[in-house]
């Protein structure tokens, strides 16, 4: 068991390393002159040479890579090109803002989605299942900014229940902050609940197709009992995977949502970084998001192993 966990952890680290190589390749080695990209057209050769030296572009790529990776690993995220401020100082508060938004959304979305998914599976192919299926399909299909714009239009402008923008007062108490963020949280919740609901339904129905369920049906057990007692324990590990996978939608959801509500989080900072072509900043935040993504999948793997005895003893 411990050996298995250690192996998963090692695998997670390996994935992170591959991700770091790709981040580096994607931002620095792709064709195109980074220095010119940063400064734009019509600059002097001295300025170009100057920025190349600051970026370390005069050194070969692999040395720059190890330098950068070493910095990342030790918490030195580098200096922003656009502002000249240390990136770790720029990130500070924003990191926690994003965490707050994402956690609050996940805490609401996960139980809601599992419940709806179970309801859809228990009453599969009935009207309520069809209703959940079509509604979630619509929410999957529409862009996050549409959900956001609609919520603002109806709840903030027409009904005036909530503020239309997400002003953050870091001194405000927990509930005051939560209240200010109701619309962004609602947007994210809508965006990820739909996916999770549908996949939970599929996972449960998948288990339902195994022979031992047929046995339970033949035994005369009720549909309700079959799902909760027979199917759910075995569906637990796929459901956990589904949840982790969909929390990853939080990442893309967060990028758009923060921009709509002008919420000072990491994703908004990253988008600003992309606009200014602030490569070190984009790399650093990109790595943080990827680490969160890989970490979530790792946690899901481990929970799935704990939830499923068969995975604990691999052949």
């Amino acid at each position, binding site marked *: 068991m411990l050996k298995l966990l250690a192996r998963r952890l090692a695998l997670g680290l390996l*994935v992170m390393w*591959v*991700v770091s190589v*790709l*981040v580096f390749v*994607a*931002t*620095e080695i*792709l064709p*195109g002159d*980074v220095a010119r*990209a940063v400064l734009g057209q019509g600059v002097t050769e001295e300025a170009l040479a100057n920025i190349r030296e600051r970026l370390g572009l005069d050194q070969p790529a692999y040395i720059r890579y190890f330098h950068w990776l070493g910095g990342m690993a030790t918490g030195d995220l580098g200096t922003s090109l656009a502002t000249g401020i240390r990136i770790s100082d720029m990130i500070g508060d924003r990191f926690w803002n994003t965490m707050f938004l994402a956690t609050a959304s996940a805490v609401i979305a996960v139980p809601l989605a599992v419940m709806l998914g179970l309801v859809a599976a228990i009453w*599969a*192919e009935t009207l309520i299942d069809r209703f959940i299926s*079509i509604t979630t*399909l*619509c929410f*999957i*299909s529409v*862009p996050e*900014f*549409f959900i956001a*714009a*609609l919520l*603002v*239009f109806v709840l*903030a*402008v*027409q009904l005036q229940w909530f503020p*239309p923008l997400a002003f953050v007062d870091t001194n405000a108490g927990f509930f005051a902050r939560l209240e200010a963020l109701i619309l962004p949280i609602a947007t994210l919740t809508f965006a990820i609940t739909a*996916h999770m609901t*549908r*996949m939970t339904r*599929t996972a449960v*129905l998948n288990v*339902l197709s195994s022979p031992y369920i*047929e046995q339970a*049906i033949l035994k005369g057990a009720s*549909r309700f009992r079959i799902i909760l007692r027979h199917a759910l324990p075995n569906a637990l590990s*796929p459901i956990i995977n*589904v949840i982790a*996978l969909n929390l990853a939608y939080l*990442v*893309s959801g967060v*990028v*758009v949502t923060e*921009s*709509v509500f002008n919420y000072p989080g990491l994703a908004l900072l990253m*988008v600003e*970084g*992309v*606009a200014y*072509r*602030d490569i070190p900043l*984009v790399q650093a935040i*990109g790595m943080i*998001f*990827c680490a969160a*993504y*890989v970490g979530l999948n790792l946690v899901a793997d481990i929970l799935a192993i704990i939830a499923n005895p068969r995975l604990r003893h691999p052949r």
Partner: protein
Amino acid sequence: MTDAIEKDPLKSAPGSKQGRAASKFRLTPVGWVGITIVGFWILVALFGPLVAPHAESDVLSNRSFAPIGEVGRLGTDYLGRDVFSRILYGARMTMGLALITTLLSFTMGSTLGFMAAVLGGWTDNVMSRVNDAVMAFPSIILGLMVITALGSSLPIVVLTVAVIDATRVFRLARALAMDVSVMDFVDVARARGEGVWWITLREILPNTMSPLAAEFGIRFTYAILFIAALSFLGLGVQPPAADWGVMVRENRLGISFGATSALLPAAAIASLTVGVNLIVDWYLRCVGGQSAEDMLK
């Protein structure tokens, strides 16, 4: 994830799905709604600019964010341009870009996926591992990073989205082709001495057509959403072009005081993607194929 066949095992009976092709495609209400919406937008994309009352960049009035019905048919945007005309023009840009992107990602993804499955061995291994590595990224983050490095221009945005999307197509195409390539008729073709291309085009492609067709619809909506998100962030299509994502971005400041000029293009995108997904949902129910959410990732 699971390659589950979405049907209720408690109810469905085993039975032949073949030989009922004609009755299979009965239009359900869901199918009707989907086809109507998508058909409407296709007509708009083709003929919209011909019937638009104003050009896409004409400033209609000096009032920005005029409400519906006061200036123009659907009000004006932040520069006082006609929202109605810009939505008509935008259909072509938004749908055209997404279509090009999807065609590209499909060509790349399915060709490579089929090759990986047919060739097998280390070719498959290398291709699959590289694919896994790219898929280890949240796609929008990867897209943002590539755009930082290469700058934002239309060809780069289209290519970036297409490559990221192609990884999903690759995985599906490879999995489908794997299933088919162990069938007896493929063995027979191999024994006959047919080449890789022949086997791919004549044996594998026809037998993977219906899941791939559904996947095309899903990837198309994904491309619309991805490009629209980038445009909304100011990194995709650039103003003054009339594109629905750009329109949402330009007018986003109006949202908080109730202007509809950002809501309408967002609703246009939403209706189009919902429409396509309804068609895919209907189609999958007809052919009894893989569920949409299994492939959506």
